[in-house]
């Protein structure tokens, strides 16, 4: 069973092994090959350690370049990985090996054990059987002997009577013969039965097994007498010689006869023949029973080739005193050998029996057991057996044990090496009395264990091969696994290092930006000093002209340098993330108009036309950072101007509400792309989305279109990079650093927009950008449009610039105002004549010009319309100013003055003489040149208004108004120059804004309020100041009614045509006026202005020095300053005043109780007792019951925008950094006090 189970397990092993191997082999093939190649790759690199094996082997499939720098690092990590792999593999190998060995061992041990037990049983059984047979033989022999003895005794006793001795003896012998025969015949196995009488007579039956004959052998009776006592005594005495074989054999005198018998019946079948004593069989004589007991021995005879077992028993006489005869029985051991042969035939092996001395008794082989010597056959020693195995076995036994056999002669040897083969040797000892027998069985081990061992070997081989396979697969798996893991780890490490590097790079870039920001700040300060000092120098009177020119030059250069620095600061501010866009409402249209006004001056020099074309749907007020928006356009326009030598620059703007998803297809199709980009952007930024939902986010589209040299399409992207110009060579001709567009793009992006260069038809560049600006929630009020159609006005545009004229006429006709266009003088005269030909007389100007057909028809239609008020917008450039002809031209136009209104477009450098002349002629409508909608609107409104009031006011106001108008133009002139000084002086980024606002103010003022100015240019400043003060007074003291009208009292008598279209504009205008004023005063530090006159300020500042400085500063400007040392005092002072106010209220006019005790509080943030934040909170809290809002301006040394956030959060209104910047402080205070008075 064990064998069977073993077989099954081994089968399983075999099958699994054989099955799994091919399966595994196919997918493993490629990794195996890889491993092999890898190993082969190891070998050389192992050999020469200098080579970086890690690189070559591991990163075959990874890009090598990436790891180039990490080679050294890889090497060490590779080694560690290799060691780890090796360790895992070794452990796996040990595990699998252990498992294999254990399995094999236990299987084998169990099998062997059970097999050995079985084999032992088998061997024992095998050996037992011949021994039993032997035992049987012995028993039967002894039985027969005993029986024979008993019978013989009986017979002898019966015939022992001495009567008739001879006859008696004859009878006795006959009797004995019969009895013996009966016995002999009954036992076929017997070889012989002999009876040897005392007298020497011998009777014997003998069976020859070879010839299968039976013989009766007897000796001659004549010589013996049974009763010969004497001889008997004699014999008994000389038994030593008489009863031995020699005696018998030597009994020569006796004649031996042999008579063949029928083996079955015992009848004599032949004559008895005499035989020589040599042929005698062994006859047991008295010598064999010397003690009268049974004896055994092994004999040989020449008739058998097997040893004989002979037993001898004495036959006692009746008295049991003497031996009468000796009975001997011999049995052939042949049958034992036969049995053994049979046994061995079934089971292989060898069995033999030996006597204790080592004589072979029986073997399972056919080899002879006897030695044929000269003295006849003799017993053979087992060690001399002719059979090789038996001989060797016997020799082995002898050698191993010698004479010291273990007790009982029992030996079990499982592995005896006999002639190169292993045998089981077992011996068994049969301890018979007088004949101990040893049985030995030798079974070849192969017979029992052969198969087993063979199988075991096979199993072992299979097991080992299977485990080797598993090991190999495991190793490959580990390799692959660890390879993957290590690769992943490596990639991760790579990633981490990359991230690290990126962080470092970002940090360093940040440092760079910060450094730049700091540096430009540091640079700016000395620059400001330089410029200031230069200004002082310019003011000096003692300079010669040459020196003056030089200083002016230096001044210009310094300004340029400062601008550059400002740009760099802007850029680095944006890059370092410090730029925070402010959110404030501003009038986009006005800002842009101001910008165009400003640049038109430059453009006129360049012979370039600047046109502003904003569509009507652009919201009036938007929220955003006005300074930055203006900066964007200023940069763009100045860029365009730089590269445009002739033609025009158009700033177009239109609006698109992202909430209203699709548009009417008004725009070119390529607009869709930015739109989608915007949408993704909106989707992208969660914040943005929120904002756009909450607020009214508007997409405002702008285009800056110029007719300059254009940009190569390949550079469309790169022009927005830092220090990049489309054509490097242009730097020389145009100058510039290439920072402008970069700043523009960063700003635009920051405002949620995009900018790009768009392909345009014709020459030049078209930059298109959109900005995402929110409009105030309530600020979506539609632009109030005057229905011009019902006023029945018509406009004749006599302008040089074709683009501006075209756009303007389009817009006018869209709004229902019929227009006519003329680009030169002749055309204008033609139109005029056509229109008014009935009433005009030719004054000598050529008439041969005829109008073009369409124009004529237009004129015709206009003529049909009655009662039209004609407005002729005349460009002063149309007149021939180089000669005196222009006066005549003027006279010519004057003829129509009854029927038309003239509006003159002036250049910024138009000489006073011309203006005076115009004024003299009664042309009072004059505007500076770039004509855009707002200006047109004002002209129209003024004309319409005038046409209404004319009848009443004409006579008293005619001349007066004119003179006032003249003043306003003077003012305008001054404005423009002042703007230049101002802009150059302004050291901050707000330069553009400041300039812009100033210039726009200038124009606005001219349009609306200019007429109030009574004095000439030198006194203008004072006037302005006065006006400001008046304005303040008005705000503070005047009745509500006046404020609503936005018309200060003193306006109404003088200003007839300047009805402010929007009353809400008034405060804004005024603040602008003041800004300008301030900037002006700072220019001339020595001036005696009191811009803060009448303001009551509370200063909370703990540092005495700063307190003093600020107090003096403010007081110098006319403000009343109360200084306190900390926040608590500030709160207290405020509350005190509040209480005091109650009393004062009664004394003063009722108006005053409306205003808080202080117009403004300047609050240091870091103060002992109560810091600025706390104080502000407290103040705001206490204000809740009064409903006031005292503006609080933070003063802090923390110059970070986060502080600004904090300040604004606690309820402060503005934020100033220390050291206090004089101008900034004043402008801040003013804007805040304005706001508060307005509210």
């Amino acid at each position, binding site marked *: 069973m064990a064998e069977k189970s073993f077989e099954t397990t081994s089968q399983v092993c075999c099958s699994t092994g054989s099955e799994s191997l091919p399966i595994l082999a196919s997918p493993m093939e490629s990794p195996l090959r890889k491993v092999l190649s890898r190993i082969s790759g190891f070998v050389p690199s192992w050999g020469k350690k200098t080579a970086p094996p890690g690189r070559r082997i591991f990163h075959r499939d990874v890009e090598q370049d990436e790891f180039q720098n990490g080679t050294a690092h890889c090497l060490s990590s590779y080694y560690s990985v290799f060691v780890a792999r090796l360790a895992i593999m070794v452990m796996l190998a040990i595990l699998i090996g252990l498992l294999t060995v254990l399995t094999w061992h236990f299987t084998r041990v169990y099998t062997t054990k059970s097999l050995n037990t079985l084999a032992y049983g088998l061997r024992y059984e095998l050996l037992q059987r011949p021994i039993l047979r032997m035992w049987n033989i012995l028993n039967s022999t002894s039985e027969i002997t005993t029986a024979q003895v008993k019978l013989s005794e009986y017979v002898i006793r019966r015939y022992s009577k001495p009567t008739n001795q001879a006859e008696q003896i004859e009878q006795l012998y006959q009797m004995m013969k019969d009895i013996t025969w009966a016995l002999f015949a009954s036992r076929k196995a017997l070889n012989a039965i002999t009876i040897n009488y005392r007298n020497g007579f011998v009777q014997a039956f003998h069976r020859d097994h070879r010839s299968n004959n039976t013989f009766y052998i007897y000796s001659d009776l004549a010589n013996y007498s049974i009763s010969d006592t004497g001889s008997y005594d004699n014999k008994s005495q000389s038994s030593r010689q008489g009863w031995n074989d020699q005696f018998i054999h030597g009994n020569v005198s006796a004649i031996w006869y042999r008579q063949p018998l029928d083996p079955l019946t015992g009848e004599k079948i032949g004559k008895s023949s005499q035989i020589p004593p040599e042929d005698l069989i062994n006859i047991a004589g008295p010598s064999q029973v010397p003690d009268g007991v049974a004896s055994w021995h092994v004999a040989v005879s020449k008739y058998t080739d097997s040893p004989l077992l002979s037993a001898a028993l004495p036959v006692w006489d009746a008295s049991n005193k003497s031996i009468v005869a000796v009975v001997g029985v011999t049995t052939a051991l042949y049958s034992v050998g036969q049995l053994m042969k049979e046994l061995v035939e079934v089971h292989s092996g060898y069995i033999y029996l030996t006597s204790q001395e080592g004589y072979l008794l029986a073997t399972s082989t056919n080899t002879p057991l006897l030695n044929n010597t000269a003295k006849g056959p003799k017993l053979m020693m087992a060690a001399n057996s002719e059979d090789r195995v038996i001989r060797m076995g016997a020799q082995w036994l002898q050698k191993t044990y010698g004479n010291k056999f273990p007790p009982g002669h029992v030996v079990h040897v499982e592995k005896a090496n006999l002639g190169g083969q292993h045998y089981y040797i077992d011996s068994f000892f049969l301890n018979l009395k007088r004949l101990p027998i040893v049985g030995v069985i030798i079974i070849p081990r192969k017979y029992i264990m052969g198969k087993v061992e063979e199988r075991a070997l096979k199993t072992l081989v299979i097991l080992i091969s299977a485990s080797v396979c598993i090991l190999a697969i495991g190793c490959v798996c580990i390799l692959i696994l660890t390879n993957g893991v290590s690769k992943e780890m490596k990639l991760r490490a790579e990633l981490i290092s990359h991230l690290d590097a990126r962080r470092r790079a970002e940090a360093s870039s940040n440092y760079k930006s910060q450094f730049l920001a700091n540096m430009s700040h540091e640079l700016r*300060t000395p620059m400001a000093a330089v410029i200031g000092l230069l200004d002082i120098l310019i003011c000096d009177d003692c300079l010669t002209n040459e020196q003056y020119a030089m200083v002016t030059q230096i001044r210009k250069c310094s300004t340029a340098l400062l601008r550059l620095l400002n740009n760099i600061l802007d850029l680095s501010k944006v890059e370092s993330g410090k730029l925070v866009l402010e959110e404030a409402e501003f009038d986009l249209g006005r800002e842009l108009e101001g910008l165009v006004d400003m640049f038109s001056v430059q453009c006129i020099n360049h012979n370039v036309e600047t046109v502003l074309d904003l569509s009507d749907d652009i919201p009036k007020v938007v929220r955003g950072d006005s300074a930055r928006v203006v900066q964007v356009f200023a940069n763009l326009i100045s860029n365009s101007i730089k590269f445009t030598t002739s033609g025009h620059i158009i700033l177009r703007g239109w609006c698109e509400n992202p909430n209203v998803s699709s548009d009417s297809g008004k725009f070119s199709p390529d607009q869709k792309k930015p739109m989608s980009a915007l949408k993704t952007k909106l989707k992208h930024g969660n914040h943005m989305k929120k904002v756009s939902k909450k607020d009214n986010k508007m997409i405002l589209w702008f285009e800056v279109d110029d007719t300059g040299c254009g940009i190569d399409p390949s550079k469309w992207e790169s022009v927005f990079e830092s220090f990049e110009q489309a054509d490097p060579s242009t730097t020389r001709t145009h100058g510039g650093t290439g920072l402008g567009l970069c700043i523009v793009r960063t700003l635009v992006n920051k405002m949620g927009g995009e900018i790009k260069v768009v392909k345009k038809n014709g020459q030049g560049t078209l930059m298109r950008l959109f900005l995402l600006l929110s409009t105030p929630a309530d600020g979506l009020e539609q632009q109030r449009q005057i229905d011009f159609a019902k006023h029945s006005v018509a406009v004749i545009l006599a302008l040089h610039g074709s683009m501006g004229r075209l756009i303007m006429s389009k817009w006018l006709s869209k709004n229902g105002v019929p227009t006519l266009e003329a680009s030169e003088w002749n055309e204008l005269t033609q139109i005029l004549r056509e229109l008014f030909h009935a009433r005009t007389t030719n004054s000598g100007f050529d008439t041969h010009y005829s109008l073009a057909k369409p124009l004529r028809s237009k004129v015709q239609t206009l003529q049909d319309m009655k009662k039209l008020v004609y407005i002729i917008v005349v460009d002063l450039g149309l007149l021939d100013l180089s000669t005196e002809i222009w006066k005549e031209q003027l006279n010519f136009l004057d003829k129509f003055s009854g029927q038309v209104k003239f509006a003159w477009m002036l250049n910024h450098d138009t000489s006073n003489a011309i203006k005076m002349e115009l004024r003299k002629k009664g042309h009072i409508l004059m505007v500076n040149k770039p004509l855009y909608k707002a200006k047109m609107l004002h002209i129209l409104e003024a004309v319409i208004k005038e046409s209404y009031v004319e009848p009443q006011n004409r006579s008293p106001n005619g001349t007066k108004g004119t003179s006032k108008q003249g003043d306003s133009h003077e003012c305008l002139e001054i404005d423009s120059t002042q703007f230049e000084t101002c802009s150059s002086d302004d050291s901050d980024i707000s330069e553009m804004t400041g300039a812009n606002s100033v210039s726009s103010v200038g124009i606005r003022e001219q349009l609306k309020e200019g007429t109030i100015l009574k004095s000439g240019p030198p006194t203008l400043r004072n006037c302005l100041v006065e006006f400001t003060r008046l304005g303040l007074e008005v705000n503070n003291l005047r009745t509500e009614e006046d404020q609503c009208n936005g018309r200060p009292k003193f306006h109404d008598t003088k200003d007839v045509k300047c009805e402010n279209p929007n009353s809400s504009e008034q405060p804004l205008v005024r603040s602008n006026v003041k800004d300008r004023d301030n900037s002006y005063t700072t220019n001339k*530090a020595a001036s005696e202005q009191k811009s803060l006159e009448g303001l009551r300020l509370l200063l909370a500042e703990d*540092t005495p*020095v700063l307190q*003093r*400085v600020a107090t*003096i500063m403010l007081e*110098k400007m006319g403000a009343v300053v109360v200084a306190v040392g900390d926040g608590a005092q500030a709160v207290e002072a405020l509350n005190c005043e509040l209480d005091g106010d109650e009393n004062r209220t009664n004394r003063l006019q009722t108006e005053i109780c409306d205003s808080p005790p202080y117009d403004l509080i300047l609050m240091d943030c870091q103060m002992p007792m109560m810091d600025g934040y706390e104080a502000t909170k407290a103040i705001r809290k206490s204000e809740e019951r009064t409903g006031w809002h005292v503006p609080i301006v933070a003063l802090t*040394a923390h110059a970070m925008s986060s502080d600004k956030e904090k300040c604004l959060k606690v309820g402060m209104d503005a934020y100033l950094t220390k*050291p206090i910047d004089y101008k900034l402080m004043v402008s801040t205070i003013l804007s805040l006090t304005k706001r508060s008075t307005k509210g």
Partner: protein
Amino acid sequence: MDLVQLQRQLVEYRTSLYHEGFLDAQFTQLQELQDENNPDFVVEVVSLFFEDSERLLNELTTALEQQSVDFKRVDAHVHQLKGSSSSIGAQRVQKVCIAFRNYCEEKNVEGCLKCLQQVKHEYSLVKTKLESMFQLEQQILSAGGSIPM
């Protein structure tokens, strides 16, 4: 001494103060603020500064000598010193104050002590410089001249 020479000397001295970084534009502003109404404005403010700074420096010294330094207090003092020095334009004092505050933020006592020494040094420097400048001005005024700007 010749008045003109004195005036020139004053101008040169002042320029050197600017040049060496002892003073900056803020001081110029101070000077601009001085007029007939406040004829001694600069001197007044500067002496205010001296008083305040000496007080602050004393407090700083005691504060830093404590076993456990109250960095918040030190920081507040330094902040004040910074504010006042910046408002008179004592640039170098202000700069050291900035470094001082950094050390305060790091709670670095050694750095603070070092900075305190530096501040004291700078302060005494600027004090002597300013004082000598005022002396010059006084001389000019007593000589009947006007102070050149």
